[in-house]
């Protein structure tokens, strides 16, 4: 029971991070029908931005309150990563709109290579460890020397994710921007005819996806305390799996998928084999795409001639 509870807590934590990244995939796919392959690396860059500013605040500027530093870092990472993704969309994807179908995917793969190698060149190939922050834990249950605990970091991740998802839901459902996004998702040409600035809406979609990825990056950094230039690929593919599992294009689906992937991964490593946890995640991706391409909450894709 304790092990189960512990895995559940760890799984939800990991799943929150995947869910935040998955929203970026699902939104972009919904609006321009493209798999933004570089999104995982955008997440990694955001973790680096967070790492650099956290270090700047704590060691150079001497900010003593860790919580204040984390909040400031998160906001800065959101802004800068949004800027980065905006620039990427302008430079690498927008000129390819209306080109043949695979062109944006290839460009995104190129961008993903550029981002990870740029970080490797600019910041060096070694792991970047941060001193541990918020290391306290709360013991929930204890028996036979095994305690199920929840750490402050995990609580922080849950709270931040919940608050941001609520805010994000509000933006998409209740604001003019969200309405424009949903309109573009349904029919881009018609939305343009009705006065929606499609280019601007797409740009803002990339910025929003990147901002959520930046939150995930900051949380990932606080949770693991270390980041590396190659950390974008695997979380990126897993988040994409989450988006597909939940039904690509569906926002609640992305969060649900993220949680499920996080839970499957932790339970798999807890009960079966830690070596094959990534194999489990990739197999789910393949199985879902083959047998249930519309995902849990998505709409089935109708093929038109």
């Amino acid at each position, binding site marked *: 029971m304790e092990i189960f509870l512990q895995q559940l807590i760890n799984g939800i934590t990991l799943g929150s991070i995947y869910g935040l990244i998955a929203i970026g995939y699902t939104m972009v796919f919904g609006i321009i029908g493209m798999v933004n392959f570089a999104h995982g690396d955008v997440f990694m860059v955001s973790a680096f931005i967070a790492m650099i500013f956290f270090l700047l605040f704590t060691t150079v500027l001497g900010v003593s309150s860790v919580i204040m530093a984390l909040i400031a870092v998160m906001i800065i990472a959101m802004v800068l990563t949004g800027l980065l993704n905006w620039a990427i969309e302008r430079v690498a994807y927008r000129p*390819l709109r209306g080109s*043949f*179908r695979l062109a944006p995917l*290839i460009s995104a793969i190129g961008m993903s290579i550029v981002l990870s190698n740029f970080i490797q060149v*600019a910041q060096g190939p070694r792991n970047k460890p941060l001193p541990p922050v918020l290391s306290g834990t709360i013991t929930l249950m204890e028996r036979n020397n095994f305690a199920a605990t929840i750490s402050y970091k995990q609580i922080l991740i849950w709270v931040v994710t919940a608050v941001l998802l609520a805010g994000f839901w509000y933006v998409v459902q209740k604001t003019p921007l969200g309405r424009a996004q949903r309109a573009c998702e349904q029919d881009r040409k018609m939305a343009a005819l009705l006065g929606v600035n499609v280019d601007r809406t797409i740009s803002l979609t990339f910025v929003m996806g990147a901002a959520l990825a930046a939150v995930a990056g900051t949380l990932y950094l606080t949770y693991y305390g270390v980041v590396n230039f190659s950390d974008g*690929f695997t979380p990126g593919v897993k988040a994409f799996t989450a988006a597909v599992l939940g039904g690509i294009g569906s926002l609640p689906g992305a969060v649900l998928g993220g949680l499920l992937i996080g839970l499957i991964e932790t339970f798999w490593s807890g009960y079966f084999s830690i070596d094959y946890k*990534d194999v489990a995640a990739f197999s789910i*991706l393949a199985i879902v*795409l083959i047998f249930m391409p519309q995902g849990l909450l998505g709409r089935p894709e109708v093929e038109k001639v």
Partner: protein
Amino acid sequence: MAAAKTTSGPGGSIAGAARDAILAGVVALGIFGPLVGLKTEQNMQNELVITTRWGLVAIIVGIVIAGRFLLTTTIWPAMTRNKMRDKPAATAGEVAFRARLARWFAPTGLVFLFIYPALMVYFLGFQGSLKWVDNFGIQILIYVMLGWGLNIVVGLAGLLDLGYVAFYAVGAYSYALLATHFGLSFWLLLPLAGTLAALWGIMLGFPVLRLRGDYLAIVTLAFGEIIRLVLINFRELTNGSAGISSIPKITFFGLYSFDLSAPNNFAKVFDLPMSSAYYKIFLYYLILLLALLTAFVTLRLRKLPVGRAWEALREDEIACRSLGINTTNTKLTAFALGAMFGGFAGSFFAARQGFVSPESFTFMESAVIVAIVVLGGMGSMIGVALAAVAMIGGTELLRELDFLKAVFGEGFDPDQFRMLIFGLAMVLVMIWKPRGFVSAREPTVFLNERKSISGSFVKEGHG
């Protein structure tokens, strides 16, 4: 930046361009400022410390501003003018020249490829030629072969496969395991490795038959990663990340060996001075022949019903099905044949390196091969070969640029920019020429005369 394309037309106002350039500079400062300007390094206590490099940031931002300004003031207006001007119809002479170029390019290239090692040995001697034959010749030809193999799947059948490296790995590990454990010869294992890879191609192809486009790409990516992860974790068989070493060398059809200790060593038999160059040259011709085999089979297959069916499938799957083409078989043959050539290349790779580990079969490798096929112009054999030369040769060349050390200081290592430049090239070529270097191609069916059709008439990769 947003204003650039709309407000400043051809000629453009300088003030608007300057405003855009400043804006681009601000964006660049925001992105590169922290990531380049504040470098984090570990000190002796394993703590991260920040060192600042504001000079470098200033240079990058300056380049971005200048580049943006030039783009809006000169390059874009020039490009628009070129587009607006009616292109004069190609004169008869030009057409004839192009046709002659197309006809002579392949034979000339072939002759060059066959005499390339001889030229290198003649000019640089046996030792000097090693690098050019091995690092450039063999390396590029492996990628040409992989590109041509994947071209069957991506270029002809239109199925985007991001996990091609899995079949490369199957071929490499088949040879490595069977040769080290059972001592079987390369010439026996080459067809076997190809067959095994083809079987894997069918096994992985079968479940993904219903998928198309991006979904297919992602599932094949997942399969490629699964195979790599199994290679890492199935330590009893594959020795995990440590890999398999001391894989036997290829023999000259069993007649002569290239092992220094063997009694029938090539150099000893012919009383030549000992050198490793013979083996490299032999490997060069071997991979050249394997690559040409791939090309030959592909060219012939394009004229067979199955090849026609592939191209029909690429253009429109629904139409294909309504015409009674069995899409299942068509897709599976494409997967199996592509995988088979990947397997051949893989066993050659294992024999050439003498060592295989899962490190060689990462997703990056698949991305490089896909990039070669797409940048070359999907379906065009010459284009794929040119792209392999440009991308692999170009990035290999970076290792040789020692003079850059004199410019940028001793610590400068051009090799670390290899993949960065590769990725940038992928993005830039996609923007500049989304159909690849060679977008014109020969139609498989023609009425009276042969003529090239432009790539814009066909829609690739819809499968």
